[in-house]
């Protein structure tokens, strides 16, 4: 970003809803001025007109006016309702995740952003995306709460541990924009930032071609599923398999032992890997061991991506529900007794090895130096 010697008042408008946010901002400034004029003129006029002319003067006792009180209660109320409606409209656009779009995984950790494209590219503290494409971020954190914030896109979302958080935007202008962590996350919080590069499609294709090391999340998940973690020994193998059938379940309702159903979304799959006993699929025994502490967040993303692919859902067309879904899921997470019983497992063992040096707390629960 070019350094200007003059002071700009707005960051670049670089996403589909940035204009709406700014419009709302200008509307509110206008409202503020509209209220400031009568109050300000009133105060200054009265201050001069009714300044003290005689020491300790008596004044007439005006008690008040119901008409005026009603007026200046109702008008601010009505104006505030327009602000509410405008805000809600923009908010709904910002936080309703569209069905289609290019899916990118984001892992936040103290104090870096790890980004994984569905085509296999990985980046750290940088995000390359094509212009005029809907981008959907599926975000998770390895430690504390972080917040993915791109001022030029006028959007942000907290990334809360223990669940997936989602964010979407459609960049409209090529350029290089700040990426910040906006939720205080400890020692190097102000260093947890980077850049978002919005590129023309052909530039993006070139960038992709030059960075094709690594597996796609689906490939990584498949590798974990069949080779590294051995999920396949129970979850694949036809009618006799001991574990629940995974083909075609994504996005469907699953019956649970003891009644009740759950929608098999990202958070449910994640929970079933980390805390298998939380929700048992009807007809199966609670025999699956927990994989908490054995898989990193990136590997989890891969597993989820692979299990989604078994239902014919690829990274670019998932049916991610709105942001209300994670809230509901977490409520059930915290209610699960199985998680509490896992309290003795080594904490934060799923942390990537390169984080050990930078985090004073990792991995044990000891507190004082």
């Amino acid at each position: 970003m070019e350094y200007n010697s003059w002071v700009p008042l707005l960051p670049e408008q670089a996403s589909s809803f940035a204009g709406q946010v700014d419009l709302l901002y200008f509307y509110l400034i206008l409202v503020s001025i509209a209220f400031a004029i009568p109050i300000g003129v009133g105060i200054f006029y009265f201050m001069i007109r009714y300044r003290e002319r005689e020491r300790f003067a008596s004044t007439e006792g005006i008690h008040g006016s119901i008409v005026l009180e009603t007026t200046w209660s109702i008008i601010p109320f009505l104006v505030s309702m327009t602000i509410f409606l405008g805000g809600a409209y923009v908010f709904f656009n910002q936080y309703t995740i569209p069905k289609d779009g290019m899916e990118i995984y984001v892992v936040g950790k103290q104090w870096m952003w790890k980004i994984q494209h569905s085509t296999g590219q990985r980046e750290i503290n940088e995000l390359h995306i094509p212009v005029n494409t809907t981008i959907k971020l599926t975000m998770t954190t390895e430690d504390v709460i972080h917040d993915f914030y791109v001022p030029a896109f006028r959007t942000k979302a907290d990334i809360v541990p223990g669940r997936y958080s989602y964010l979407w935007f459609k960049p409209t202008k090529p350029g290089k924009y700040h990426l910040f962590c906006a939720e205080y996350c400890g020692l190097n919080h102000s260093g947890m930032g980077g850049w978002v590069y919005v590129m023309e499609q052909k530039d993006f294709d070139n960038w992709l071609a030059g960075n094709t090391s690594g597996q796609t999340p689906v490939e990584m998940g498949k590798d974990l599923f069949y080779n590294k973690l051995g999920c396949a020994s129970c979850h694949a193998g036809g009618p006799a398999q001991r574990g629940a059938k995974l083909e075609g379940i994504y996005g469907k309702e699953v019956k649970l032992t003891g009644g009740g159903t759950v929608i098999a979304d990202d958070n449910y799959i994640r929970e079933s890997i980390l805390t298998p006993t939380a929700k048992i699929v009807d007809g199966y025994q609670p025999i699956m061991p927990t994989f908490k502490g054995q898989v990193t967040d990136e590997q989890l993303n891969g597993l989820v991506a692979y299990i989604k692919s078994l239902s014919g859902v690829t990274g670019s067309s998932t049916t991610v529900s709105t942001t209300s879904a994670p809230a509901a899921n977490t409520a059930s997470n915290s209610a699960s007794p199985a998680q509490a019983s896992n309290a003795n497992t080594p904490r934060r063992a799923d942390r990537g090895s390169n984080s050990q040096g930078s985090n004073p707390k990792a991995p044990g629960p000891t507190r004082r130096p």
Partner: protein
Amino acid sequence: MQNAEALNIDHFERPKKNYLNNGTTLKSWLLTKDHKRIAIMYLITVSLFFMTGGIYAATIRLELLTPASDLLNTNTYNKVFTAHGILMIFFFLIPAIPAVLGNFFLPIMIGAKDLALPRINLLSLYIYWLAGGFAIWALLQGGVDTGWTFYVPYSTTFSNTYVLAVGLAVFINGFSSILTGLNFIVTVHTMRAPGMTWFRLPLFVWSHYAVSLVMVLGTPVIAITVLLLALERFAHIGIFDPAIGGDPILFQHMFWFYSHPAVYIMILPGMGVVSELIPNFARKKIFGYEFVAFSSIAIAVFGFLVWGHHLFVSGQSIYAGMVFSFLTMVVAVPSAIKMFNWTATLYKGSISYETPMLYGLGFMGLFFIGGMTGLILGALGLDVHLTDTYFVVAHFHYVMVGGQVIAYLGGLHYWWPKMTGKMYSEFWGRISAMLVFVGFNLTFFPQFILGFMGMPRRYAAYPPEFQVLNIFSTAGASVLGIGLVMPVLYLGHSLLYGRNAGDNPWMLPGLEWRTSSPPPTENFETTPIVTWEAYDFGEDSGLDFEEARRRELAPVI
């Protein structure tokens, strides 16, 4: 009425006994049951905390003069802004007006001899001292780096600092708040003088009644929250950390369920002070008394229903966000009502511009900006962009400093002659009030622009394009700092060399002006009988304005 006459005649004669010279030993202060002496001890303590918090603030502004984290390393910076927040909020802003000015004047303004529960009052001071001692001890040990919000799981699992000690300080301090609130409620209900009906109460009393309700109902929740946080941190019981089965958003709900109402604990008393300053220095009855009184109650009630507007981006359901945004808009209305009524009160007044009035008018301007930017942040779509940026920092400083601190200074100047019997230098008072106003705006207005540009808060280092505005802000902070140090000098000077203020230097009708300065230990020689409305400058007030004018023209001996 006889009080008024007594006061008009004995203007320059100081009473032999007052609350200050009634006992001079340390014991007579530490074991006092006199609300006025307790208020003076609070005054000294909150001033020390304010200075300490101010030094932290100055350090923050110096560090932010340059983009890199150079004056302080990030670790120190994180501890400094946390200490600034905790000291200013829990140990200055929350007790400042209620425990100092409220303690001193609430009983006098309703014609009572003391608060209803004097021993409880002393106990709440000791609890405050204990909590403050813990906080200072924790800071000396190395401090805490969680931010004043203590968000989990950072505070329970990751921070290596003295979270438990500071949490304990906040926990203990809450009881001081609860007891003070309880004391005020009981006092207003049971201790009013004959004739002091509810609708003759000064608005300062109404706002303290409202704020006491919030203190009594809200503060237990922060105590519970801090206790649960300590359980998780100390005993690893999974409540908030998802790694052991907890829910981090639960913490945010519980924390803000107290801390948003706490914002109203920090502004309602300020509104109460301004509701005294404006009518008294306009020498006119307040416009729409009932509306101003009940808007305080409305703010207290609705203030409990808006905590979720701190969680718009934290994964709360978007529909819950909409409900909280709606309620946030509703709570703006009673604040707007107050603004309009204060403005209308000036109409046909006889306005004089002594130092307290300058603060009162400054409050109106700054609180207006603080309130309007609150609406900007309450608008959902804008909050997504602006939350956790400097826009929020600027907004709450406009409300907390532009509101409460300005009102506190105004109130302190207003009642200083009554509390000490001495008059400060009006010249330096006005200069300092104007420096505070200008310095404050220069410090915090650029931060609105920084916030909209996207500069996140709690950043020790920031991109270079934000530097120009940060330099403005730091420059303003130095002006503000000078403006805030000056009262220490001229108020201190007035204690030794100030001329005697007289019992009623501005000829005001409130009960506190109808007793001697400083007041006697029992506040009034005889229990006053109230026959006038609040802010009555007419004949009913029984004040002899003619006599006062003559005296003012006579040479001061």
